[in-house]
């Protein structure tokens, strides 16, 4: 028996970061909103408090805040010939669960994409000719430009209280910031964080080499700040527990701290937790989603929630899977290249390195991911690819610290992993490591995609989503090139010892790499080349809007969330201003 509920103006599927943002914007515009969140409620005053929050075993190792694999997971294989196996315990990426979603435990690297990223196919063609893009590289221009998104990037920055230093203020380049970035209409809301010891060394070396280092922009306030919803944020404590954990200082942006206090008591908003949405009820004729079906995971009862507007904000895997299960849009077929749902799945390609400095004391437990220094000289089209055997690139960052000891105690590779010798060497190097990382782009390839798994099921009995993904020749060539740049920087820093970590040939689901999954419901200019239009509106159902990095056409050389946030505000603005008054396609197909 399915209980049918009263219709509301809008239903939000997944009250993670974008879900909470949209719910807040809609209620401000006077709409009634029901938020359906599969996980539990998260109340910072109970969970994110000292001393309990400083528990590396619970949060970092046992993944307290992450999605429960036993309820729903992803199957994975490297290519279409293999049988995909379920991810039984998260490894490479860590989708979150509960109010606030994945953002509750993000690393806070807060970026805008380059103006050229938004027209990457055109830029490459203009610079290197039409033949420069390999036939299997299915990259596309974004149907929205940097300039159009800029006001929404700015708004998102001011919701988050981002810390950083501008390098391009209204067209004026500023030394010490990122001179490659698109023009910003305003400075960062709060100043850049203080650099870690490793970041200071990295900056010096980069300056010596003629690169353009700058402090990493960080999705947290570096000093007290009041955000756009009137919520008072605290300053970053440099506690070192940030990655995979929430923040007791009200500094790092999460929905429970930065949005929910201004939404929770809103009369027009209803939050239902433990509500697992299984399907959208699709009226093909009317090109609308009429309602959504969900199961209360505490009672097993099923409900139908009708709504005028449906926001699908369930993270990358749920977003595609929901369309597959609801028969919305044509599934992508890798053999023919036809279809769009599941197409252009991308990820981040991250080569790393570690250098040890015996004569430096780097206090490895202090700091935050935001105390890194970065260069953007080898990202996207910031450099000339003529004569190179790849397209794309990424930023390179360096720094030390910000890691508790179960995970953060690097030793040189030839040190045994146990016994007295291991202890001695761990003590010897603990204070002395600097980490480097290239946040490499992944330009879409026709062989990488999402579809429906033929074997494995979730807790509701629905097929799991299947990920078919491997690194490409282009990814590896890009990564090798970036490692030569990292190598030169490290040499300039003159370490006691260092190691470069090239990516393994095949993508592997262990260990952790990044939760920068993108694509599957890509945006574009026509129903033939995309799932949603520039306003994140489904071509197949005009009252369905899809939020999150699942709408990216490909992944560029940055962490995704800054752009995910800007897109959510861009879309909600259009919905509130135009769609509500005149429901229908916002772009003519």
């Amino acid at each position, binding site marked *: 028996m399915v209980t049918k509920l009263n219709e509301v103006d809008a239903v939000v599927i997944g009250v993670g970061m974008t879900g909470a943002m949209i719910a807040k914007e809609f209620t401000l515009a006077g709409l009634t909103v029901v938020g359906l969140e599969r996980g539990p409620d998260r109340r910072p005053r109970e969970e994110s408090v*000292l*001393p*309990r929050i*400083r*528990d*590396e*075993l619970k949060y970092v*190792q046992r*993944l307290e805040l*992450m999605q*429960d*694999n*036993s309820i729903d*997971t992803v199957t*994975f294989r*490297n290519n279409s010939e293999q*049988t995909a*196996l*379920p*991810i*039984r*315990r998260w*490894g490479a990426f860590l989708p979150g669960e509960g109010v606030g979603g994945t953002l509750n435990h993000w690393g806070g690297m807060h970026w805008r994409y380059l103006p050229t990223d938004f027209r990457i196919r055109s830029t490459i063609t203009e610079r290197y000719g039409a033949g420069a893009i390999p036939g299997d590289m299915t990259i596309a221009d974004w149907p929205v430009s940097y300039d159009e998104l800029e006001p929404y990037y700015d708004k998102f920055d001011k919701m988050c209280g981002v810390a950083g230093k501008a390098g391009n203020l209204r067209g004026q380049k500023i030394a010490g910031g990122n001179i490659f970035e698109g023009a910003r209409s305003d400075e960062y809301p709060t100043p850049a964080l*203080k650099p*870690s*010891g490793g970041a*200071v060394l990295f900056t010096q070396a980069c300056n010596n080499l003629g690169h353009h280092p700058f402090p990493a922009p960080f999705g947290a306030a570096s000093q007290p700040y009041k955000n756009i919803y009137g919520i008072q944020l605290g*300053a*970053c*404590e*440099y*506690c*070192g*527990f940030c990655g995979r954990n929430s923040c007791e200082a009200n500094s790092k942006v999460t929905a429970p701290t930065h949005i929910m206090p201004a939404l929770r008591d809103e009369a027009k908003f209803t939050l239902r937790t433990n509500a697992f949405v299984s399907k959208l009820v699709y009226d093909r004729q009317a090109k609308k989603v009429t309602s959504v079906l969900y199961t209360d995971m505490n009672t097993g009862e099923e409900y139908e929630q009708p709504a005028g507007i449906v926001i699908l904000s369930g993270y990358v895997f749920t977003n595609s899977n929901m369309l597959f299960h609801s028969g919305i849009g044509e599934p992508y077929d890798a053999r023919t290249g036809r279809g769009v749902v599941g197409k252009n799945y991308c990820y981040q390609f991250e080569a790393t390195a570690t250098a040890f400095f015996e004569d*430096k*004391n780097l*206090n490895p*437990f*202090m*700091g935050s991911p935001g105390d890194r220094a970065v260069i953007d000289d080898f990202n996207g089209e910031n450099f000339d690819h003529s004569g190179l055997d790849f397209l794309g690139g990424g930023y390179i960052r360096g720094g030390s610290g910000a890691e*508790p*000891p*179960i995970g953060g*105690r690097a030793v040189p590779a030839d040190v045994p992993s*146990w*016994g*007295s010798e291991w*202890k*001695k060497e*761990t*003590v010897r190097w*603990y*204070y002395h490591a600097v980490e480097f990382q290239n946040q490499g782009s992944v330009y879409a390839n026709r062989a990488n995609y999402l579809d429906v798994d033929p*074997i*494995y099921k979730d807790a509701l009995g629905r097929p799991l989503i299947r990920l078919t993904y491997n690194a490409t020749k282009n990814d590896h060539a890009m990564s090798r090139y970036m490692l030569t740049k990292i190598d030169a920087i490290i040499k300039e820093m003159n370490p006691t010892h260092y190691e470069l970590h090239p990516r393994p040939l*095949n*993508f*592997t*689901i*262990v260990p952790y790499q990044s939760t920068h999954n993108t694509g599957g419901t890509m945006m574009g200019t026509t129903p033939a080349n995309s799932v949603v239009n520039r306003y994140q509106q489904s071509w197949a159902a005009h009252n369905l809007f899809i939020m999150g990095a699942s709408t990216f056409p490909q992944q560029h050389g940055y962490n995704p969330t800054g752009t995910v946030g800007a897109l959510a505000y861009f879309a909600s603005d259009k919905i509130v201003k135009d769609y509500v008054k005149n429901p229908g396609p916002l772009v003519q197909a």
Partner: protein
Amino acid sequence: MTEVKLPRRDFLKAAGAASAAGAAAATGIAACSPAAETAATAPPAEPEIWLTLNATEAAFVKAVVDTLIPADELTPSGTDVGLATFIDRQLAGGFGNGAKLYRSGPFLPGKPEHGYQLALSPRDFFRAGISEANAWTTKTYGKEFDRLTVEQRNEALTAIETGKAQFNGGFTSNFFFDNFLQLSMEGFFADPMYGGNKNKVAWKMIGFPGLPASYREEVKTYFNKKYDKEPQSIADFS
């Protein structure tokens, strides 16, 4: 009834102390370490209570954690810092029983790229791994792991770590080793409230200060200066 095992603590302690002295002489870094005192004064014997491990398993776990973390000038032995207790509690609880682990079949053999693909809960995986390891050492040395000499333990554990030990339970010896080592390191470096890292020995060893971890000024004032503070744990703030 299984055979009654002789208490092996004292023997181990003597062996650990001997190798510790050797290591200290070789490196010359022991003298001023606060951990050296802790290592010398044996804590009063506490009753051994196991939530889930049986006697054979407990003996194995103790012998392995004492090999991974031998008593030396830096810390007491793995057992004495609570690692066997930690592993027992972890296996008895949610983690051991496969909480949040996707456990629907079919269970097909995966490649290393696929991560954990066994039908076993972590508790059952450790049960199977211990029994395979003991079977292999019995075949190779005529004894279960905990009955081996210190040299034999090091040698056997190296064979298990590198996959040279033949396991027949549907997984390799190195896969079992990796999981065992990971759990041991979690116990060694986690907050002491979980039972390992007793007296914050591992934190003292490396110089990790624990809580409260507010370094807004220190990140600058301790620039290139060692922040050498006595560690504090969750219990110290509770």
